[in-house]
């Protein structure tokens, strides 16, 4: 195995399309980072194959934040050690372990199932909004997304923009040891080991959309970054991965190229 870099930070997004949170020492299941995108808001006005209310139609949605009320219980399944020892898939706790609070941009804190939360979004959607809960992570395409600091630096250099990595909404931000930007593109169909146990396979390049044009702190948008990626990088920045072997990870974990 070749050491190719380190895991810089791990992120999850309790509510799809809202602000994410950095987490330490977290379990990564076949479905992705524990607690990632367990909640999502659907809109009856959106296409059935992608029914979600997102920051694309409602840019200020990125200014809403969410936090699990019992943070520690949402990082690792209760019987994780015993299950992994037997090569079993550790069961997740019941849904109430993932009780969630929302903080609106106005500073109001609401339970996620408080009708006032959806009511606060109503004028931003043409359809009826419904709260979804799932334990299989409401990701767009694949369980994990990965983005490198080198790619961020290259995009900053190419565009002259000062870019916040959070625009890219990855699960894993990584720091390659000796590679240039977009090195992750070369890892498609390669197997990586991260930390003691987690193994992932990079499956495909991450096609970007309007979401990356939104400033995560102000919700202001400018299409320039997206246009640049489309014209210079065929629309892709970062990669998607599938989980082959479940395990826990933490910032600083070494990343190895297995094969």
């Amino acid at each position, binding site marked *: 195995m070749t050491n190719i870099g380190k895991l810089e930070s791990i992120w999850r997004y309790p509510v799809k399309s809202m602000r994410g949170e950095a987490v330490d020492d977290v379990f990564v299941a076949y479905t992705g980072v524990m607690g990632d995108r367990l909640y999502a808001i659907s809109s009856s006005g959106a296409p059935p194959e992608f029914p979600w209310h997102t920051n*694309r139609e409602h840019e200020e949605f990125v200014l809403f934040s969410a936090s699990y009320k019992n943070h520690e219980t949402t990082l690792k399944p209760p019987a994780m050690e015993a299950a992994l020892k037997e090569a079993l898939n550790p069961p997740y706790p019941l849904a109430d372990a993932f009780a969630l609070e929302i903080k609106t941009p106005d500073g109001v804190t609401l339970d996620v199932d408080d009708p006032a939360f959806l009511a606060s979004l109503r004028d*931003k959607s043409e359809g009826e909004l419904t709260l979804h809960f799932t334990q299989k992570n409401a990701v767009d395409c694949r369980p994990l997304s990965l983005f490198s600091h080198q790619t961020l630096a290259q995009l900053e250099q190419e565009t002259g923009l000062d870019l916040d990595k959070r625009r890219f909404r990855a699960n894993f931000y990584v720091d390659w040891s000796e590679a240039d930007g977009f090195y992750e593109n070369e890892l498609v169909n390669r197997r990586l080991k991260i930390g003691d146990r987690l193994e992932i396979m990079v499956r495909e390049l991450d096609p970007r959309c*309007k979401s990356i044009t939104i400033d995560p702190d102000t919700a202001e948008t400018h*299409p320039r970054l*997206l246009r640049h990626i489309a014209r210079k990088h065929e629309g892709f920045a970062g990669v998607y991965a599938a989980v082959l072997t479940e395990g826990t990870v933490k910032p600083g974990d070494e990343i190895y190229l297995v094969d």
Partner: protein
Amino acid sequence: MKSEPASVDDITNFRVTLDGTEHEVPYKQGEVLLDCMLDAGLDPAFQCQDGHCGTCMVGLEMGEVTMRKNNVLSQRDLDLGYVLACQSIPLTNDVWVDCDS
């Protein structure tokens, strides 16, 4: 300037600003603006061509268009004058879109 209504047959060109340069692009009946730009040899940003990624959003500086569908632009974008080139059909004969805006 007020847009002049036009029948489909009246619309033969539209104007495009791309990388700071203005272009007069032939309009082919029934096609969307993006396809006409590509046919004219221009290199605008685009990706899905299906109205959901937003890569081809351009500023409508003049004229009127209709979008076949829009699954990505917000009301804020529309209020700012953005349209999707991959979904836009001109309705007037003075359409000008800015790919740099």
